[in-house]
């Protein structure tokens, strides 16, 4: 079997191993900041940057870091990039910074980052590691966006701040409150599980039809 190409590594994270829907990692920001689509996307992109940059650095340093202190080293690397992002967002948009609040700094504690650094970047050369990390990050962004859209449409009747249903729409307030986050995520998880079941069935049928 040949090694997967960089492009495959990239696609893996977006769909097949989507961090939110398949691996169920990084739940804290997933539920906390997805009140609106804009917040969700910016959170996702911030995480993607941190993920890509820290995986690149971890991968470059993978032979230099002693095994006993690797987790601590990874965390310090991640924390450095999170600080960079934190200050960058503060400089770019103060509104966004206030909307996301402490959750930008909490990217440090996102399981996806440490998980990727430990499971992939520490074992692979820089280029595939970075591609994989960016793919994962975009998969995370996609997941956040899908949750954020549903919550904003149902909870506020808007998408990207544009009103969708006119004045008579009665917003479904619970969707922008904490329980709504759980419900929407649960709903998407069911959709993904159903999709997987169907594709497994289809594969079996194809095998049967081509003996």
């Amino acid at each position, binding site marked *: 079997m040949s090694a997967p190409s960089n492009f495959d590594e990239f696609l893996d994270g977006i769909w097949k191993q989507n961090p939110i829907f398949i691996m169920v990692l990084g739940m804290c920001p997933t539920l906390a900041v997805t009140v609106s689509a804009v917040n969700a996307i910016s959170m996702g992109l911030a995480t993607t940057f941190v993920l890509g940059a820290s995986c690149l650095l971890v991968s470059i340093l993978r032979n230099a870091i002693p095994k006993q202190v690797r987790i601590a080293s990874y*965390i310090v690397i991640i*924390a450095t990039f999170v600080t960079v992002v934190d200050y960058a967002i503060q400089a770019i948009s103060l509104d966004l910074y206030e909307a996301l609040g402490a959750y930008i700094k909490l990217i440090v504690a996102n399981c996806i980052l440490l998980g990727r650094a430990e499971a992939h970047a520490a074992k692979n050369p820089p280029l595939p590691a970075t591609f994989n990390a960016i793919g994962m990050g975009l998969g995370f962004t996609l997941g956040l966006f899908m949750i954020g859209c549903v919550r904003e449409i149902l909870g506020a009747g808007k998408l990207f701040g544009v009103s969708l249903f006119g004045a008579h729409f009665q917003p479904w307030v619970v969707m922008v409150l904490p*329980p709504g986050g759980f419900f929407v995520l649960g709903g998407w998880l069911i959709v993904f599980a159903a999709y997987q079941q169907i594709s497994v069935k289809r594969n079996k049928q194809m095998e049967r039809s081509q003996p």
Partner: protein
Amino acid sequence: MNNDTVANILLTTILPGNFVLAMFLGMCPFLGVSQKLSTAVPMGIATAFVILVASISAYFLNMLLVHFHLEFLSVITFITVIACAVQLVEMFVKKTFPELFRQLGIYLPLITTNCAVLGVALFQTARNYNFTQSLAYSIGGGIGFTLALILMAGLREKMQLSNVPTLVQGAAISVILGGLLSLSFMGFSGIGGGE
């Protein structure tokens, strides 16, 4: 300076502002270790302890950082201190309760990446709590986290006996259960003066 009373902070963080159910901090262990009551309780207590240690050290660290105008290092220093505290707890549990250590498995070192721990350190700094307020915040947070974990474990133990459709088994049903729990905790809003 923040003027919330200690009792107010304590009540708010346990019930209406529960870390897990209202602020989504510490979701990984909440979904990961809540299968059995027997592991949920020690996990909750271990996390509560780490939260307390992290909060106290973060308070003094922050004083130091502010004094030297090094606030931009806060994330890095907090997470390092937390990692050390977790290491301490891990060694303690391994030595005194080896059986429990095996049950908790990977989730024990993962307390480091528990958002609740870092969250306490960051939120208490952001809200300008003084020492007693931070103490109340961290103790309340720890109790609230343990409470949520125990409630969830109780629900999931019950669920093992019920007939769940294959489609929603696993993560989906746990997340929806968490949603229902969160919905019921919304009933507490108003206690302690709210957020």
